[in-house]
């Protein structure tokens, strides 16, 4: 039975899987096509942790590429740019 389920699930295309998943998240089980007004969709149920880890890996990749010290300098500079931009608009952080 389990094997059968796995097989069925595997047979769906990634696009279909994601579509089904987003519907499940929002409690919908129909087959209606998603319109063009929706531009980002919810993740697969149960995939949140792996997506978080994926982002962690991505950020670690930035540190690896630039080196710890250069990466910190880069982030500091962008944050300072953001703060000065907001200060110009009259927002104090």
């Amino acid at each position, binding site marked *: 039975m389990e094997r059968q389920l796995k097989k069925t699930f595997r047979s769906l295309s990634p696009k279909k899987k994601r579509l089904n998943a987003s519907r499940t998240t929002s409690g919908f089980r129909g087959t209606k096509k998603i319109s063009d007004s929706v531009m980002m969709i919810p993740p697969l149920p149960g995939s949140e942790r792996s997506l978080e880890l994926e982002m962690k890996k991505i950020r670690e990749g*930035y540190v690896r590429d630039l080196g710890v010290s250069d990466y910190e300098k880069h982030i500091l500079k962008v944050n300072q740019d953001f703060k000065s931009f907001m200060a110009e608009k009259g927002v104090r952080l």
Partner: protein
Amino acid sequence: MPHWKLKHKSGEIYPAKIEVLKLNEAKALKDHGWEQPFDWSLYIGLQSTTPYKLLIVGNNIIQGAVAYQIKDDHLFIDLLESAPFNRYNHPQREFVNVADILLGEVCLQSFFHNKDGFVSFIPKSKLYSYYAERFNAKLGGRGLMYLDSVAALRLIKLYYE
């Protein structure tokens, strides 16, 4: 007070703001032609995800909505939808940068929450190249796309005034 610059198809710029989406508004969206499979009211009251709406200053019509979660080192967008009359293929499309502003707001909040502007999301399949070209979003694993600090700041500077 700074605001977002919402661009009308005629080229006019309207000041816009982001506010928390209320339950009655979320429930009413489907009656106004918003996507049926997604129920925005399910996000109301959730601790992890908060839904927000985009409004023109001085007008109560919802132009778009976004729901996001604050993670350890970034913000994750759970759902982003523009109002039906702002769809790119709508014959009487009103505003042309609704998604830009909603995404920009999440970037802004990412800086405010000390996440360095990092934002991740799962686009609709056919929009991967759109996000890469328009926002310089990068592709991660598991269908994920993300904006890094530089791309996030660029987007904020473009539309926040």
